[in-house]
């Protein structure tokens, strides 16, 4: 699995591959690892499929009740906190690495990472899953502050396609979910377009890298 989320001004972009494997057999090559928790808050799942599905279902239920009581949109921080509570208190029995990404009217776009033990960290961008190890260098060199929505989408597609190439447990299609105040859009990058994602806007990023090198 490779999952990723990036925050931009006004929203977040969530991305994931689509391979579920049992050992070395590909049980599902078109799985959906990005699940909605609330209208503008979605989660990327990695680790045990059963555990993450169960946790996501619990959190969805709690947040549903919570936002109805509140009468307002829930905070992304609240959703992440609920998820963290379940992961931390059941840490001995769960194997779940989650990334919560969403938009709320109070703090805008936010990304929270909840790795295995139940830590919670707010970050500008987050990586997870077995494939993430292969792209830390790539992501560190290409990430810039203040990227636009389109730039974030290209960044996510490029990174995940690189991880899919190197990691045997990641593959299939790239699923992207973009969340903004105006709404949520889902995309699916298939087949040869995945390879193309590795080369998309190479000049654009190369320029960015050069710029940073010049700045020192």
């Amino acid at each position: 699995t490779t999952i990723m989320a990036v925050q931009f001004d006004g929203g977040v972009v969530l991305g994931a591959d689509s391979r579920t494997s049992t050992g070395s057999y590909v049980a599902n090559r078109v799985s959906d690892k990005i699940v909605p928790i609330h209208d503008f808050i979605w989660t990327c799942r990695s680790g045990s499929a059963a555990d993450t599905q169960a946790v996501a279902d619990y959190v969805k239920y709690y947040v549903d009740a919570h936002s109805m009581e509140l009468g307002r949109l829930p905070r992304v921080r609240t959703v992440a906190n609920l998820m963290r509570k379940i992961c931390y208190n059941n840490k001995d029995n769960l194997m779940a690495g989650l990334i919560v990404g969403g938009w709320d009217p109070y703090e805008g776009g936010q990304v929270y990472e909840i790795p295995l033990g139940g830590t919670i960290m707010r970050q500008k961008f987050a990586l997870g899953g077995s494939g993430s190890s292969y792209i830390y260098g790539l992501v560190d060199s290409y990430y810039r502050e203040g990227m636009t929505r389109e730039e974030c989408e290209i960044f996510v597609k490029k990174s995940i396609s690189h991880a899919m190439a190197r990691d045997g447990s990641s593959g299939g299609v790239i699923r992207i979910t973009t969340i903004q105040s105006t709404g949520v859009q889902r995309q699916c990058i298939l087949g040869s377009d995945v390879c193309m994602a590795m080369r998309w806007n190479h000049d654009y990023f190369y320029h960015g890298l050069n710029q940073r090198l010049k700045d020192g």
Partner: protein
Amino acid sequence: MSITSYNGSALIAMVGKNCFAIASDRRLGVQFQTIATDFQRIFEIHETLYVGLSGLATDVQTMYQRLKFRHKLYNLREERNMRPETFASLVSAMLYEKRFGPYFCEPIIAGLNEDGTPFICTTDLIGAKQLSKDFVVSGTASESLYGACESMYKPDLEPEELFETISQALLSSVDRDCISGWGGIVHVVSADQVITRTLKGRMD
């Protein structure tokens, strides 16, 4: 993880009308990490005899080197190339020599007899020969490969059709296996020519 699925591999050989085809994937990995995408698993012994080796990559290379050596020696002594059945017996004997400390590879032997009829067989890692009239498979994706070949295979295919069939069977099977894939290479061998093609598949 089992030692035979440490590097990942997928191999098929199929029989056609006076020809045969042998195909393999190209990935070399270390468990789930991809290291190389151009690993050679199919080797030519002589013009009408090919051997494909699946399993642990180091044993693939060592087995090939040993077989090449033995065939060259045979050629010098007998002043002719080995027949496919003879070669299959050689492979079987060499593997059984290491019965209690085997090479972790499962070879596929494919060749044309002197009269032009194709011959294929496979052995397990300790040399048990298994002849087949239609197709043989080997590697980490072998279960998928069996299913794909069983449904796609037809007897007496011409070289071009055989190429299509074996390619589709290989690609669809490796797509369901995390540790094999990254394209393919297919050799279609008839009495007068060998056509080698590389396949572009999913690079994940």
